[in-house]
């Protein structure tokens, strides 16, 4: 698993995709994967998105290096909707698991059909140590708070010093 953050340093919106190739001890390519939906693909200028790339079944001892590939394409993007993430806190749920909870508030006048929360967690050095995500099973109507919760592994939770939540959105009728 590879985690990190990507920022659009340009002055125009971009559609970004991050992929990685694992390189073995003999310089051979072991596996290539992309961030799929664990990233906010459309980034406005200076917007930051966490990403996570999973490599199922891969053992760390086999990997010598990693080749990262971040690609960007200019796209038209709307500045709306603006989604506020309120009351963020890490809690222990009813079964004893750590979760990041909060509320989403759609500050625009349009309904957001599908919202997707992506959270990056940082250690004491400010390094991203985990990225988790979750879809909210309810549309966001203007100014109506909707609760969300995303899981956080217990071993990671102990090291988390801060976190950053971004909200990705998908609309049936994009503006």
């Amino acid at each position: 698993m590879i985690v990190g953050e990507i920022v659009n340093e340009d002055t125009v919106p971009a559609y970004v995709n991050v992929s990685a190739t694992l390189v073995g001890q003999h310089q051979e390519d072991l596996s290539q994967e992309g961030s799929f939906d664990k990233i906010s693909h459309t980034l406005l200028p200076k917007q930051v998105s966490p990403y996570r790339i999973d490599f199922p079944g891969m053992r760390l001892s086999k990997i010598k290096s990693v080749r990262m590939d971040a690609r960007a394409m200019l796209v038209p993007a709307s500045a709306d909707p603006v989604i506020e993430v309120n009351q963020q806190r890490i809690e222990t749920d009813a079964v004893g698991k750590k979760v990041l909870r909060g509320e989403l508030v759609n500050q625009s006048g349009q309904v957001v059909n599908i919202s997707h929360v992506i959270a990056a967690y940082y250690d004491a050095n400010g390094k991203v140590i985990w990225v988790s995500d979750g879809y909210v099973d309810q549309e966001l109507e203007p100014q109506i708070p909707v609760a969300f919760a995303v899981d956080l592994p217990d071993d990671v939770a102990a090291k988390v010093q801060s976190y950053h939540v971004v909200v990705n959105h998908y609309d049936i009728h994009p503006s």
Partner: protein
Amino acid sequence: MRGPISFLMLLVLAGGAWAAEIHPPSQATAGVSFSMSSSGTGQGTFYLIGPAHVAKHQVSLGGNIDVDGTEIEHAGRYTAILCTDQCSATTFYVHAAEPDRLSLLVHPSRVPVSNPNAISAVAFVWDAFHNLEFSPQTVKFTVNPSEHSSISQARTSSNGIAWIRLTSAAKGGPAKIEASIGKTSETRVVQQVASDACNLRIKGSSVSHKVLVETDPVRDCSGNFVPDGTVVSFTMTDSTGKTTVDVPIKRGVAKVEIPATGHARITAASGVATGNELDLAGGAE
């Protein structure tokens, strides 16, 4: 016996007919007609084989063989062959003609202001037949900013290529970058855009159970307005936890209303730039 007989036959053949010879110039210029002298008598067949063209002519031996300019438009190595009952061949080189065209590559198309050596301009020098001009040529690069006088610098091409690195201006806007050689020139436009936000300042006020926070007009360190759509991330911490919201700049400022309970501390950031901290009293706890 076979060896001496073969040797004798070769001698007879060699002595019976001398191949006519041709004498091309040591070098020719693309697209320019020239003549080459030939030896021998009678008629012969002349072949000209070039990088992208082959020609065949019937010629009279002993005089000049004319090669039309249209037959040597491509620079490179040519082989001239003159055949009677035997053939003789020789090679010569055709060089590019005078510079006539430029190809100009400028990268990137958008560049932040005041960025040293951020713009790369590469010019390829061609003749009228699209042959790369390998001999050194002086290419003049000129930058025409929208509101300042132009600046020029000359570079000598090497293997047909001249290049320069340029620093973007402090003021945003389009800059025309021109490469010229003789009467020919090529122009590209680079959009110089605002750099990262600088001295990001936020101000706010409490309204009922909300705080209204907005930035001052967001500019870069050179005073250029950061373009609308650029995201400013507001973070507020109050007694209920942390609130974050990414707000795009509209009409030069970013503003947001955030519900707050009790004392609220608010910060803002845009890219790598961070703003001042704001302490506000929100609504009742």
